[in-house]
């Protein structure tokens, strides 16, 4: 029995989710492929966004997939780190901006 919920090799089995619902699975993967095609944004830019989001949602599969994807596209570690810091800033900011709420309540309740 596996000692971890996450197994790296499971990433390659992502497509197998279609086995239990081919119709919705196909729709999802078609959509997924379309999203990452070059549009107004380049595939490279989309890869960096995906990496940042992967860190925000803390998905080990996605972090594996989009670090590798970035390497394959020639994205440098400095660019990856900047993108991840954007995720960190938004995540940290989302916590800190709620301080305003705390301050409002504190001030309201305080004499």
């Amino acid at each position, binding site marked *: 029995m596996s000692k971890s919920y996450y197994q790296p090799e499971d990433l390659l089995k992502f497509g197998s989710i279609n086995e239990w619902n081919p119709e919705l699975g196909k729709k999802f993967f078609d959509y997924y492929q379309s999203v990452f095609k070059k549009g107004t944004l*380049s595939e*490279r830019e989309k890869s960096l966004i995906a990496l940042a989001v992967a860190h925000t949602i803390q998905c080990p599969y996605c972090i594996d997939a989009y670090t590798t994807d970035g390497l*394959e*596209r*020639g994205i*440098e570690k400095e660019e990856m780190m900047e993108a991840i810091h954007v995720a960190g800033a938004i995540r940290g900011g989302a916590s800190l901006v709620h301080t305003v709420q705390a301050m409002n309540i504190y001030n309201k309740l305080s004499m």
Partner: protein
Amino acid sequence: MSTKKSLKAQNNVLSDAKKQLQLLSNSIFLSGQLPTFSQKLQSHKLPSIKPKQLEILQLNIGYMCNQVCAHCHVDAGPDRKEKMSKPTMSQCLQVAHKHKIKTLDITGGAPEMHPDFRWFIKEAKAAEIPEIIIRSNLTILRANKKYYDLPDFFKEHQLHIISSLPFYRRGKTDRQRGDGVFNKSIEALQKLNEVGYGLQGTGLEIDLVYNPLGAYLPRGQEELEEEYKHALREDFGIEFNNLYCITNLPISRFLDFLVASGNFEGYMTKLVNAFNPSTVGNLMCTNTISVSYDGYLYDCDFNQMLELNVSSKSNHISNFEMDALQNRNVCISQHCYGCTAGAGSSCQGTVV
């Protein structure tokens, strides 16, 4: 990552082609965890790989090189003395002329370091070969004063230059090819531009080659070409024609890296999972024959390094028989997955 000596000079076990082939056939392939290349072809109902019309004669004229790149499949370097003799060079040209070969693709090592390089190019031009490609590592053009006039020599003989530049920034390039390689490569590209290479309307072509710096595959050749062009133009005023993305094949120094870094199984799994059956009909082994410095014939430069001779009674440039060679089956092993992954890989970049 750059090593200072060839695997051969280090007496590394992987300098032995047989050991490499054993490694590629054992482990995960022997246990059935991954299908062999032959099994993969069969599962896609693809027959053995047969050649089409021969268009390219690729000559490896010697293993000597001024660089010792970390990924080099030739295991080339300053300590390698093997080189093609003048009589063998002449035989290659006779074959190319007789069979109206479209392209002579000259590689090494650094082919410019061969003592008869210039003589050979002049003879090849006299033999009226339509296209002559030189696979230049760029730094050789700035390595010594005796090579400084090579851009003019290339121009005079209308040679098509193809050069590795692993990245458009210094760090990655120097990690793969050695300290100082990036700056010298940039200087060499500027010199090539000065004589007209890469500039519109000159007909002088300089193409660059990108290959990954690690255990991952290349992708997005078109987009990467745009980035290279933009960065090299903005930062250094450099122009070039095409960028080719080439997959690192699991042989020689790159195989050594894969094993030493614990990436061998993961990389082979990636290659197998990325197998694209539509690449098979366009592989370079279908229109190319590779000739080693000692005149033997191979399906490709990689098979040459693995000492997998062509499967034909005509197996040397001195007994070249077109009919016999055209009827052969291409020799395959698990390294062939490197040419069939994703959009495919060849000496001219992707194949589909």
